[in-house]
């Protein structure tokens, strides 16, 4: 009886340490074997934190990773936060098969952030990083899609599928990392600037912003099909069928002027491979389409 009380007292007085998933993962997962999925998971997690706040996220990385990213992407400070967040928001993570290479590819600017990963201190970390222009990677085939004279969306889908294939071919099975692309940084900066300037210029007229916002709200509520204009390409029904959290997080991410209006690109950070393309004729929605880049890259047809 006394022993039992003593035992109970010991149990209740023993220090209670609880647990953390981080520590448990380190203790129970062992040394990581090579795993494409783990590398992809790390790249996707990086993308997620860089969308929210690039400057703060950068500060959480270890010095090796900070050096690698600074060399390729430049400064992660308040001045560059918006353009960096914009890049990562629309970037698609892709791991090279059986290699320690992962890329974040933003199809709008046709640029890869290619990262060589190394397993260190219990996690996959960025050992080296470089920017690569998609056109350089898949050379000598299709140039930057935005320069295509007609069927820009077809060119965009073609850029995506060809550049992913070229990425896999170059980096699969431990092939050496890319030759640094000296012009990629300036190319990326120029393209990003062009898209963001286009967005800024489009935002200057509040009536057309309000008109596009009405379409975005309808998409978010799953009611895009009801806005169909007769005779126009209007993929509202298909867009209404997209996952709710993709629709709910769509933002007008890029704008390009046309002779009779603007083409707007709506992107969700959850599914950057699904592009919603809205053509506005002044304040009138003229057409609405969707390009599923993931499908385009895997043999499926892009609308």
């Amino acid at each position, binding site marked *: 009886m006394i022993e039992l009380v003593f035992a109970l007292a010991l149990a209740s007085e023993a220090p209670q340490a609880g*647990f953390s998933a*981080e520590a*448990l*993962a*380190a203790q*129970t997962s062992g040394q990581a074997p090579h795993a494409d999925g783990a590398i992809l998971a790390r790249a996707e997690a990086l993308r997620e934190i860089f969308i929210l706040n690039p400057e703060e996220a950068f500060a959480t990385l270890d010095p090796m990773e900070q050096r690698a990213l600074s060399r390729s992407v430049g400064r992660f400070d308040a001045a560059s936060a918006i353009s960096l967040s914009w890049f990562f928001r629309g970037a698609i993570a892709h791991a090279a098969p059986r290699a320690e290479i992962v890329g974040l590819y933003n199809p709008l600017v046709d640029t890869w952030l290619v990262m060589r990963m190394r397993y260190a201190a219990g996690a996959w970390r960025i050992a080296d990083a470089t920017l690569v222009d998609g056109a350089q990677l898949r050379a000598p085939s299709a140039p930057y899609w935005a320069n295509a004279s007609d069927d820009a969306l077809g060119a965009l889908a073609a850029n995506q599928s060809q550049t992913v294939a070229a990425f896999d071919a170059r980096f699969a099975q431990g092939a050496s990392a890319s030759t640094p692309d000296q012009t990629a940084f300036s190319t990326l900066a120029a393209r990003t600037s062009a898209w963001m300037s286009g967005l800024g210029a489009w935002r200057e007229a509040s009536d057309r912003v309000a008109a596009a916002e009405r379409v975005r709200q309808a998409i978010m509520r799953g009611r895009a099909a009801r806005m169909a204009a007769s005779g126009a390409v209007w993929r509202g029904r298909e867009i209404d069928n997209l996952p709710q959290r993709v629709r709910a997080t769509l933002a007008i991410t890029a704008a390009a002027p046309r002779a009779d209006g603007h083409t707007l690109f709506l992107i969700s950070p959850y599914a950057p491979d699904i592009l919603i393309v809205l053509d506005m004729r002044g304040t009138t929605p003229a057409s609405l389409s969707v390009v599923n880049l993931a499908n385009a890259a*895997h043999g499926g047809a*892009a609308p």
Partner: protein
Amino acid sequence: MSDKFSFAKAARRCVRLYLGALCVGMLSAPALAAPSAFRASDGAEAPAETMEAALAEDSLVIILGGGEAISLFGLEARATAPTRLFVTLSSEFLTAAVASGRIEASSGQQARAGDALVLQIDGGVVSRRAFDAERLAASNSPGAAALLASDLNTLAARQRRLHFWGYYEPTGVNAAAPSSPALEALRRSYLDPSIIVRQRRAASEARLSLAANDFLAALRNGDQVSVAAMLDPAPFLARVGPDGLAAARMRAAARIVADAGLRTALASEPSIELAPDNQSARINGVAGAWRLSLVAHDRAVFIAALEPEIP
């Protein structure tokens, strides 16, 4: 006389047929008590009571007799004729595609061969869509192909005719994988366990308290599977990737569940106070307060840590 119609004879015959049918119905009733489910990968039977857990790992072929019903993650439907379904769970949708027969959802939508009832995990809305039988047949796993080939081939031939006449238009969205295949595999590895799917069907403002309550209940009950499913996947994914995630989290959960001190301290349904930052909860246990750290990934809430609060 014998050729003349007799009401009496006809009535007696009807009674015999009715009683015979009733007997056959009674004899065969036990076999029709529950739908049969088979794993798409190898055709192995999945017991009805573990269908949700099986769906987190594999697609299912479900065979329903007329009148039989299914209830999966809130998608409730009843077959109005003998029906074969291909059911798959992605990170966003639960899709029940009708290969043959007809079903009716409790929310009223009816689906026949070539249609699919689609439940959006976020929000729980059910809608009806058409699916491409030819693409499903071409991409199906061996177990499902063996069970559904005949139905899907018949359906594909009909859909080709309808497509020719302009009734169908192909779309670029794949309900089984709304994102790229690699990212979809990554997300499914932590979003598909049934306890997480149920959480995502709840309103977003309720998910934090639901996660805290579910985790403490699982801990009290020694439910290692649920504890594992609720652990923050990020540090495990960074080490082992989606393929090794389930096993690594199960090993970690085994340690947590085996911690008698932790279970004792949180045994008596302690009160839970959510912190204003929506990233933690205070657990008022019998032997002191604990801090439960919560982390959201893809709008689902996971447990990052459980530590005694420093007085």
